């Protein structure tokens, strides 16, 4: 009972939708979805939506947004690829350099937001443009695929049909959940997002929370970049180009408020799973990719409308009860 209480209504309904959708696809595809190969690719390409959804969620939790998710991930991936091919660095060092530079990009976003006191939206719009330039100038119009086969091989390794990179994503989500529920800095971030004036009065540095949230977002994108480079056969300039909607769709469908103060890690992971199912369904029925954009757009719109309506109704109910008392 206690365990059940931890899951919100959104979590439960998302899990239901995910399981039902998965079974439906498994049946209509005649069972091909359940073969090793399909299952493996299902989980491999689920890792990235989870990670970028979490990266956006952390910034949403302070009531801001990060428009640069795609550009940061793309630039970090490009840095890793170039470090390995032109720089001749060993794999682990190149991955570390990419991860650290993504973290640094997040830190710069945070520092700029704190220093200029501007909304994260407009700052990250600026850094997005700059990082796209960096990514393009590193990769140019080529596909870099001459890096080590060992790294590409790692993307295919796994425990049975479950690839290691999916486990990395799940592990990251678990660490993040621990951070937000158990650690003091995580709690402080949520306090800042919920009510910054109240947080300030209770002695929390809002500036530190904002900086930290943007930096963590960068770290998560660094992990996303590692997953990307090891699951794809080559790196080109289009990487990260379609991450923006995904990054918002997963947490918003998962039940995170745009106004800040909440996180929903399980919900974000599940929503990413549902989005992945839409993608699979598109491939299965050979629909146009535009259908996916359209569906996800409509789903996000109806989710936010519905949650706002529920919030208003509960407020009205609460007020009604007060009047009765």
């Amino acid at each position: 009972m206690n365990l059940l209480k931890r899951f919100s209504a959104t979590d439960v309904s998302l899990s239901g939708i995910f399981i039902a959708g998965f079974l439906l696809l498994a049946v209509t595809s005649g069972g091909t979805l359940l073969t090793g190969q399909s299952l493996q690719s299902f989980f491999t390409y689920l890792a990235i939506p989870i990670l970028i959804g979490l990266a956006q969620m952390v910034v949403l939790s302070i009531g801001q947004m990060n428009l640069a998710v795609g550009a940061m991930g793309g630039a970090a991936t490009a840095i890793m690829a170039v470090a390995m091919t032109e720089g001749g660095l060993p794999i682990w060092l190149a991955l570390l350099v990419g991860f650290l530079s993504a973290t640094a990009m997040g830190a710069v976003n945070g520092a700029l937001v704190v220093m200029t006191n501007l909304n994260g939206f407009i700052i990250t719009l600026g850094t997005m443009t700059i990082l796209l330039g960096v990514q393009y100038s590193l990769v140019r119009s080529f596909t870099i695929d001459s890096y080590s086969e060992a790294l590409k091989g790692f993307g295919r390794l796994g425990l049975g049909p479950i690839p290691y990179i999916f486990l990395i994503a799940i592990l990251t989500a678990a660490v993040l959940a621990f951070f937000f529920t158990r650690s003091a800095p995580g709690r402080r971030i949520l306090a800042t997002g919920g009510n910054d004036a109240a947080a300030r009065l209770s002695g929390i540095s809002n500036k530190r929370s904002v900086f930290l949230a943007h930096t963590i977002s960068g770290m998560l994108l660094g992990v996303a970049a590692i997953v990307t480079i090891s699951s794809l056969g080559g790196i080109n300039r289009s990487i990260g180009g379609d991450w923006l909607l995904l990054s918002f769709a997963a947490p918003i469908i998962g039940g995170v408020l745009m106004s800040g103060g909440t996180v929903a890690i399980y919900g974000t992971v599940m929503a990413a799973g549902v989005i992945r199912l839409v993608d699979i369904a598109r491939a299965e029925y050979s629909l146009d990719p535009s259908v996916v954009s359209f569906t996800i757009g409509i789903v996000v719109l109806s989710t936010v409308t519905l949650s706002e309506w529920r919030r208003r109704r509960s407020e009205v109910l609460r007020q009604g009860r007060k009047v009765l008392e």
Partner: protein
Amino acid sequence: MSGVDRRVGGDWQHSLRKLGSSQQVILLGTIIALFIIFNATNSAFSSVDFVLFPLIRDTSVIAIVGLAQLCVLSLGHLNLAVGRMAAVGAMSAGFCYEVLQAPLWLGLLAGLATGALIGAITGLIIVASGVNSFVVTLAMDFALLGFVSFIYMTFTDASAYTVQPEGMDQLRQGSFADLCFAGICGPPVIPLMIIPALLALGSVGCMFKYSRTGRELLATGSNLKAAQLSGIPVDRRIVLAHTLSGLLAGLGGVMLGFVNGSFSAAIGDEFLLPSFLAPVLGGTALTGGAVAVFGTFLGALLTLLIRQGLVVQGIGLEALNITLGLILLFALSVGQIRKRKFTMRKRSFTMLKRRAIR
């Protein structure tokens, strides 16, 4: 007491106006300086046919798109779907020309109407759901992206409407040199396409400056609660601002279609960043309540001047992106620091006043 208050209010508004206009003076100075630098470093830059004429033509399009963003910025809202609304407008214009064989003006009208319709729907969703305009327009952007590419893929052969109605060529290549009045012709640098941009600038400017509706929009943007309490129909104004935004985005899309000579799903792809750059560089506040209509044109001109200048110098797309991003961040930080200084001065003034009363 009230006399003091009025004078304080007057002073405050006066300095604000000065702040706004001084930003535009700086902008104009930067534009002229950059123009001279680009001209000095590369003689090809002064070519009318290849550089200046297209530059002003593109500026006209971007200025209109900037105005589309400005309309919602006046409320403190954002329109992330501005590019896709332009694509929808261009699509319906293209549909009219190719399928209905419509004349030029009818397609333009259809583009404006569809844009306005999409904008109105967006505004209604925002008002009815109470959700942040950012999320609604982001989701709208993706829904429209899917819709537009689906329509082009299914109903056209080459993923574009390519029929050119009569007069489109003249409009694209025409300049003021074609407009002769009593034997005197205009300069060939200024394209005919600037006329719709000037019309849009004039009418949006007049709306915000002289009409009650415009002032109500600004009041809503600077303080929603206060506007509500003083009897402004806030919800209706929000829908109106988004409708206007859609209308102008549609106009921008159709005009880009005229410039390109065809209507495809790619129209509007490049609109998002300039749509913010133009009004914000011009002095429009992101938080709502203050707009700079003429500044939007200057902001668009500066953005495209830098782009064109770097292209003529042979600098690639990469460096271009980096420069534009840096300019945006720089302009915003400078604006913010100025504003902070300004509020600090205001605060110390109020403190002095309070002490005097005591």
